[in-house]
């Protein structure tokens, strides 16, 4: 070896020799092989960032190949990181395509990929000859001259090139994170409505076996409504993730617009029955704020509460204190006029930082679910029943207040307090059954508490799936 040759170049060349050896070993099997690596200018050829990016793109490449029915022989996969960087090599199982056709597909993968210029997918034919398209790629850095020209001429500064590469990779990884987070938020929101309605038995509420105190809706009405809303949850998440206004309040008009669209979708699917108006309001805010905070890596329950309070400001005074619509008073307005602070309903709950969710329900859900890997129906039924009772015991549900008055609401809350105290004890079942009977008898439906239960499930899920898992 050359005297005085740079140690790192020596290692780089040795690594390339080993790659060649790996390729040569495959020659006797005489099949087409495919390799994948990144084009990283300068040294080192791999680091934590590059490796994560390589892994992401490798998954994408494998899906792409599979979608074109170009099948990788899993047994022949070599995937390792050395001085020449991250490297993947595998045989292709007898395909209908020639090596040239496979190379064309791989080129199209590179071209269509947002940072495809950093990706290098090479195909070697059955005889061990690299397949070349003969096309010269343009330089990633200046995007003007052919890459090979800039390389030979050493046109660009390595540090500057690497900075640009790092930046492009970060941007791409960020877009992947956005997609993952927003998708997860939409999944959690839909799950929260499904698990809430499926929970059974419930006092006065629609569940999977019973219509509770309702005559105009049943289990299927809720499933249809949930399906209608699920389409929009992702939109709210995307909006929150990308929102960059100075004041969160600037998001309100657009959020309301999305909310109105969701209400219309809901009514279309339920034939005019209000299944989820409260849930749209609560989940809408929760998804938006969660996405906004997760995008900035600053989600915490405290940050969430503070953001949601800031967004709503003096919601009670603004919305309940004055008429938004001409004509009849809404139920919420009547309640506020008649019962004052106690009749503030969901707006009051938000303004107070959602204590039913964060102080009552979440501790219960943590207690039931934290040590469990998979939340089975049985576990969910236990945890959510316990949490629902904790919410009912605290919540001044304006629904009940409006329809049944203060006395009934207080009795319901007191019965729920008793059930929460007895939870897990032998006489719980009898007390819970009697609470359910009481609601049926009085035709009470604690719909506001059901909405808060859904939000509690959602917030628990955000913490579990997007905060702890990402740490």
């Amino acid at each position, binding site marked *: 070896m050359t005297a005085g040759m740079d140690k790192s*170049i020596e290692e780089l060349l040795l690594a390339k020799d080993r790659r060649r050896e790996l390729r040569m070993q495959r020659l006797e099997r005489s099949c087409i092989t495919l390799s994948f690596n990144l084009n990283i200018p300068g040294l080192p050829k791999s680091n934590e960032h590059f490796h994560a990016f390589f892994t992401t793109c490798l998954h994408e490449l494998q899906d792409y190949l599979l979608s074109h029915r170009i099948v990788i022989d899993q047994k022949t996969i070599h995937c390792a990181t050395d001085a020449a960087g991250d490297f993947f090599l595998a045989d292709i199982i007898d395909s209908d395509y020639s090596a040239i056709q496979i190379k064309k597909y791989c080129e199209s993968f590179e071209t269509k990929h947002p940072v495809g210029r950093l990706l290098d997918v090479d195909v070697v034919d059955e005889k061990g000859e690299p397949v070349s398209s003969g096309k010269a790629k343009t330089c990633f850095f200046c995007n003007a001259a052919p890459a090979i020209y800039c390389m030979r001429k050493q046109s660009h500064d390595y540090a500057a090139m690497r900075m640009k590469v790092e930046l492009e990779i970060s941007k791409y990884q960020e877009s992947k994170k956005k997609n993952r987070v927003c998708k997860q938020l939409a999944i959690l929101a839909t799950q929260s409505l499904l698990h809430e309605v499926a929970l059974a038995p419930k006092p006065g509420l629609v569940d999977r076996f019973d219509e509770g105190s309702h005559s105009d809706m049943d289990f299927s009405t809720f499933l249809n409504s949930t399906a209608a809303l699920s389409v929009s949850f992702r939109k709210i998440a995307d909006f929150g993730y990308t929102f960059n206004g100075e004041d969160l309040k600037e998001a309100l008009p657009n959020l309301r617009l999305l909310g109105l669209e969701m209400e219309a979708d809901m009514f279309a699917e339920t034939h005019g029955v209000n299944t989820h108006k409260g849930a749209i309001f609560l989940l809408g805010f929760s998804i938006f704020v969660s996405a906004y905070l997760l995008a900035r890596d600053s989600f915490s329950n405290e940050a969430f509460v503070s953001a949601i309070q800031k967004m709503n400001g003096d919601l009670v005074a603004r919305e309940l204190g004055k008429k938004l619509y001409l004509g009849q008073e809404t139920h919420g307005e009547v309640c506020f006029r008649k019962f004052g602070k106690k009749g503030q309903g969901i707006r009051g709950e938000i303004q107070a930082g959602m204590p039913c969710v964060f102080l009552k329900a979440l501790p219960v859900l943590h207690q039931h679910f934290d040590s469990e890997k998979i939340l089975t129906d049985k576990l969910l039924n236990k945890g959510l029943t316990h949490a629902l009772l904790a919410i009912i015991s605290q919540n001044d549900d304006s629904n009940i207040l409006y329809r049944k008055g203060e006395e009934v609401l207080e009795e319901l809350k007191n019965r729920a307090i008793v059930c929460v105290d007895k939870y897990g004890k032998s006489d719980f079942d009898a007390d819970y059954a009697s609470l359910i009977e009481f609601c049926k008898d009085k035709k009470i439906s604690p719909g506001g508490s059901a909405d808060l239960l859904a939000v509690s499930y959602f917030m628990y899920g955000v913490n579990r799936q997007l905060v702890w898992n990402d740490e």
Partner: protein
Amino acid sequence: MTPKFKAQAGTFESSDIMVLIEPVAEGSGRQVDISSTVMLQFEEDLKTCINQVLDVMEIENVHLIAKDKGALTPTIKARVETAVKRSLGIQEGTL
């Protein structure tokens, strides 16, 4: 010195170069053939770089074939030197 054996160094990996050496009869001179898959306009640069190594090593009679995959100068020099040494029987193994 005059190469005695057929030898090669390098790979077809991108940013590398494959150098093949064939012994020729004493007095036949140097013949350097380049096939750069990517860009022919660098042929002269490549030749100059290869000839520099051959000059230093005092190789006058040789047929050298280089298949370039976009290698940079240090890589070209290292690969040519290794191939020559192998063809002289003074280096075993890699590089």
